[in-house]
């Protein structure tokens, strides 16, 4: 219990306190401390990737082992990952200890011709879904929904060059809407979220919020 819970809570409090206090100490020692700590996080961050890779591959291994619906498709996850890792290790002409893969390598080819088109296309599918959803569900049933609809139409209309060719008033209306009521609402949300973030940080520092500890023993 002491090693699993108390020491981590002490570490959070002490590190947090040092991070907070050093912000108000304009001294070279304070700057050196910040540089040392941020270097640490840069290095630790690299190890985080392993957890992501393992989690995803583990999930697909389980899918295959349990023969869940569509388990056969998981083979393509392994195939894609293996192709990239092998191409990345081969890394012609430098090998795995040289600089990162250059243009014209197989690694680069897979990235540009598989990852880029798939990634770009998947998100573009949302254009169809949004158009269809707008047509089927976007109704001015009450004052709030009407405000939402009118604002959306003004922005959609005002932000394309065709509206400016009809009248300068349309882009100006969109600008006014974005720079006044939209700005005010976003600022209200920003202030609210910031206050929430501060309270959450304090809860973490004082050990009230502990969900980040996750599982792995008590």
């Amino acid at each position, binding site marked *: 219990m002491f090693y699993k819970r108390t020491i*981590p809570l002490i570490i959070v409090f002490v590190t947090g306190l040092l991070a907070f206090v050093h912000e108000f100490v304009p001294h070279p020692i304070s700057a050196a401390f910040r540089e040392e700590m941020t270097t640490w996080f840069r290095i630790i961050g690299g190890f985080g990737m392993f957890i992501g890779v393992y989690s995803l591959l583990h999930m697909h291994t389980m899918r295959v082992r349990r023969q869940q619906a569509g388990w056969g498709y998981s083979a393509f996850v392994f195939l894609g990952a293996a192709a990239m890792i092998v191409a990345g290790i081969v890394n012609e002409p430098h090998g795995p200890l040289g600089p990162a893969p250059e243009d014209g390598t197989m690694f680069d080819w897979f990235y540009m011709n598989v990852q880029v088109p798939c990634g770009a296309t998947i998100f573009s599918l949302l254009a169809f879904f949004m158009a269809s959803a707008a047509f089927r569900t976007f109704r001015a049933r009450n004052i709030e929904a009407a405000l939402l609809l009118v604002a959306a139409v003004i922005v959609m209309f005002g932000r394309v060059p065709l509206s400016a060719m009809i009248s300068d008033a349309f882009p100006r209306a969109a600008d006014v809407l974005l720079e006044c009521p939209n700005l005010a609402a976003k600022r209200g949300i920003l202030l609210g979220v910031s206050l929430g973030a501060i309270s959450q940080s304090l809860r973490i520092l004082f050990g009230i919020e502990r969900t980040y500890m996750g599982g792995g023993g008590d």
Partner: protein
Amino acid sequence: MAAPIQPERTPAQRVAETAVLIACALGFLAACIAIPWPKDGPSKLSMEGIGVFVAAGLTLIMYSFLYRDNPLFKVAENLYVGVSLGYGAMMTWYLSLKPEVVDPLVFAPTGEARVDALLHRTVPILLGFLLLTRLSRKHGWLSRYAYTIMIGWGAGIGIPIVVHTYILKQLGPSVQPLTGNVWDILGGVVILVGTVSVLFYFFFSVEHKGAGGAVSRVGIWFLMVSFGASFGYTVMGRVSLLIGRVVFLLRDWLQLNL
């Protein structure tokens, strides 16, 4: 990606749709062979040419999802996940682990540089390895030592930064003196009223009744206008992505002069 709910298909429809899918695939291959490519550009059989065909094929397979979820889409989707994963892993090696861990310790140019690296990098490297214990059920708690340092630091340094950047710097322009022309004054008033009413709407410690209810209702109106603006911009963003892919298919694959 979850497919939209669709009515059940009859066996005959299934056969017909599979036939259409195969015909589309064959049509794509035929188009790749038949499309004339300019002589001064890369040849169809070069790596660049094959790359364009692969990218175009994957793009069309992704769009086939709009008709119905299908095996080709699932293959492309899973391949994409795998390639992204492999790319991320290898780039982490080349841009993070190799230059931060291996090079300074193993390939240090001088003994002095190696001692310096040992001094400054041993602790974070050990913490990095501790992070990996998260993968073990029995020893997962050890990863807390690495997490807690990062979380404590983030929480501690975050408080003054959030106060300075997101609160103080944002409050100032919300309560500016009402000067300038009538539009500037009106704009200033709208921003002040909007910010206060939205903040009040999120203040749940007081029941939203009477005058408070009216302020909260004004806050909802401001929020609706802002959500509408966000929706409008979101449509714009998604349409832009679609335009980019359509232009790729027409210009790079079909070699049309746009």
